[in-house]
């Protein structure tokens, strides 16, 4: 096996905590091309631990590209060089022997570093808490087939709902904007009849919290869509803008 291994130079961002300065640390690794990117880091950490050296802190959980826990900037790109996958789905066969790989955390004003490659993305949850739901208590639902929804609409809502909340869109954006993330939820619920009654209140509340948390403005560079592991479309941002303007015109609950 080791004959086919890739020998790589890793330059990994190490940072003790949010208020300390970080820097790149060099590591040499030899890894099977069949291994995943995170398995390479597992192997590195196993070696470091064996030598009683501090391992590299990074997050991951499902390793199937769906939980949204993992997220590394690899050679400058959130989730690495292959489009439409999360970091955990990146495999080493996409690299060449002798490559140097830069590994950094997702960087954004609203994502402070906790340690090494781990950042605090809880701002995204705060935005959802502001209104990213349908207000329906358990037990009060009507029969699931009582309201037909056309296949196309359901499918479009699904495309928006497929967001995994990883924050790559924020990390990719030069403004640190969360517009793709927020608009995906706004679109998902605005498209469905169940989300319709609260649509204006929802978009206003979510945008307000998004702005308060220090996420930047959208300047339509579309890099968020390019880096999104689920291919969430920037059309959602257009839809959110429309919802927002409509809300401002029609809503009676707006604070001025």
């Amino acid at each position, binding site marked *: 096996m080791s004959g086919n291994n890739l020998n790589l130079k890793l330059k990994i961002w190490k940072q003790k905590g949010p208020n300390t300065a970080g820097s790149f640390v060099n590591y040499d690794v030899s890894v099977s091309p069949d291994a995943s990117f995170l398995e390479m880091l597992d192997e590195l950490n196993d070696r470091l631990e064996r030598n009683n050296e501090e391992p590299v802190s990074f997050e991951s959980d499902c390793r199937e590209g*769906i939980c949204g826990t993992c997220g590394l900037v690899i050679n400058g790109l959130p989730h690495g060089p292959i489009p439409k996958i999360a970091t955990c789905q990146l495999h080493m066969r996409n690299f060449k022997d002798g490559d140097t790989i830069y590994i950094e955390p997702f960087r954004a004003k609203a994502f402070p570093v906790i340690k090494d490659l781990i950042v605090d993305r809880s701002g995204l949850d705060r935005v959802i808490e502001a*209104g990213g739901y349908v207000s329906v208590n358990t037990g009060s639902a009507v029969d699931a*087939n009582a309201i037909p929804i056309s296949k196309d609409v*359901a499918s479009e809502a699904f495309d928006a709902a497929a967001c995994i909340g990883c924050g790559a869109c924020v990390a990719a954006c030069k403004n640190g904007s969360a517009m793709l993330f927020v608009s995906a939820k706004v679109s998902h*619920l605005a498209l469905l009849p169940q989300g319709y009654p609260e649509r204006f209140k929802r978009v206003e509340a979510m945008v307000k919290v998004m702005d308060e948390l220090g996420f930047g403005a959208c300047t339509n560079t579309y890099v968020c869509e390019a880096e999104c592991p689920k291919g969430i479309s920037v059309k959602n941002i257009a839809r959110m803008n429309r919802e927002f303007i409509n809300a401002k015109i029609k809503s009676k609950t707006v604070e001025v």
Partner: protein
Amino acid sequence: MIKLDSKIPDGNIAEKWTNHKFNLKLVNPANKRKYNIIVIGTGLAGASAAASLGELGYNVTAITYHDSARRAHSISAQGGINAAKNYQNDGDSVYRLFYDTVKGGDYRAREANVYRLAEVSGNIIDQCVAQGVPFAREYGGLLDNRSFGGAQVSRTFYARGQTGQQLLLGAYSALARQVNAGTVKLYTRREMLDIVVIDGMARGVVARNMVTGEIENYTGNAVILTTGGYANVFFLSTNAMMCNATAIWRAHKKGALFANPCFTQIHPTCLPLHGESQSKLTLMSESLRNDGRIWVSKLKGDMREPNDIPEEERDYFLERKYPSYGNLSPRDISSRSAKEVIDEGRGAKGQEAVYLDFEDAIKRLGRKAIEEKYGNLFEIYQTITGEDPYKVPMKIYPAPHYTMGGLWVDYNLMSTIPGLFVLGEANFSDHGANRLGASALMQGLADGYFVIPYTIGDYLATQKFPSVTTGHENFKMVDQEISETAEKLLSIKGKHTVDEIHKKLGRIMWHKVGMSRNAKGLAEAIEEIKELRKLFWQDVIVTGNGEELNQTLERAGRVADYLELGELMAVDALHREESCGGHFREEYQTEDGEAKRDDENFRYVAAWEFAGESKWKLTKEPLEFEYVKLSQRSYK
């Protein structure tokens, strides 16, 4: 010896839950906010429970080790969720879902619990749709269904190949709404390390703040564990990296009985191993078996490419052995059949894998239809293996996936510790010795949305709660134990890494407490696990310190618990001298190699009470079958 009271209500099975709900005591709406309920875990069961209890007006504390409540491993469930809606007019009913589930579980589940599960299954779909879960629909705008293993009706609702994600995001949104409303306080990046029992009641938990390392105390009137299963005891499983048994194991050591620990599910359709560095196994949804055909070569050691093997030299072994269920035979049977043909030396190109082939389906339905149904699964496969499943058959192999065993609970989902409730995969209740596909999501949400909101009220309304603060000596004792354990782990500074020992444990479990088991292997496994546990506590290396974010320390604590739980799994498997569902004892099989149950001697739930290191006392809860006739499961 603890006496188990399952609290199954009297009366006809179809009326038990209705009558029980009426007989349960209620908590006055104005009094609900006076009760604090701690929910550990925010997967399907936890998020749905916390949200529903918050809506009712209780004060809820929700704790998760993730950075967000949206990450739990429920999110990875692909295929779907069962419900007895009978929208397809194909003969489904609550009774049939109940019947299929009891039979699928090889008659080792409680009838009353399973019936209730089937009964509320329809409400789950209604609730999820109301939340905005974008289930698959027909052109007429109504919900679509597909079939899953162990059923001859189409009762599985799905959202492409991401049903778990969409259901979890629905529950997460309901939870977020309650966080906003102030009824739920959500604590992320905290790992529960123990429960605190005061005057015989669960009154709080102790958790480690995973960012600062601080040990934090939480008090409550009741504690709900929704922390999932323990398949990661095998190291390689389809579970997420952080899934662990710590919460249920420490509750077990505080007095909660552990039921049927040996009942583990090995899922037939996972991606095969690629090498030593492999960190986990990836599941390919069972829904693929709707259209994919499973086969191997008829010849031993056949090294030809699959597309070069002519039709007449292929053995579609599930279709051959089980003509009426074919490729949709239940998981335990499908996994074992794959193991059999591989043991005969007929694995795909000599590897530990069988083929899952879509050639016929693509010919019949067209590539576009297959793309629509399974597109994302095919993409996952290609990303991981580098092979195109539209052209070359997939290679699959069984992998540990789900654990039917868990903490013993009564009909109210309460464990043997008063005030400690256990929901979802963490309890043992509904799936017997084998879970049917698309039933885990159903159970998690049934427990959280529709069972616990009723049953916990009865407990709260009937107890007197002396005031308890975090200054109580039992909290201090637990805090100290936890700090001492961490210090011990950090001070050993031995030669073996945590992962290395975990991998060794995984190999013991896979080979001797895995898909097929025998008395000799199990006895060996028990000794080997003890040895390995000794090695761990003498010679493990855990870097860093306890007062910081320390992922090695987190993993060390979890592996320490697996090293005890693994032993109990082997003890349970050794004691159960029969084969049933996922528990296959080689000594007990029919002439044609099927699981042979012993209903006379083993028709019971084995509930184990912790009695010190390597010591357990067994209590049996006999299982009565009034409605489903016990028979040898046949899928032929």
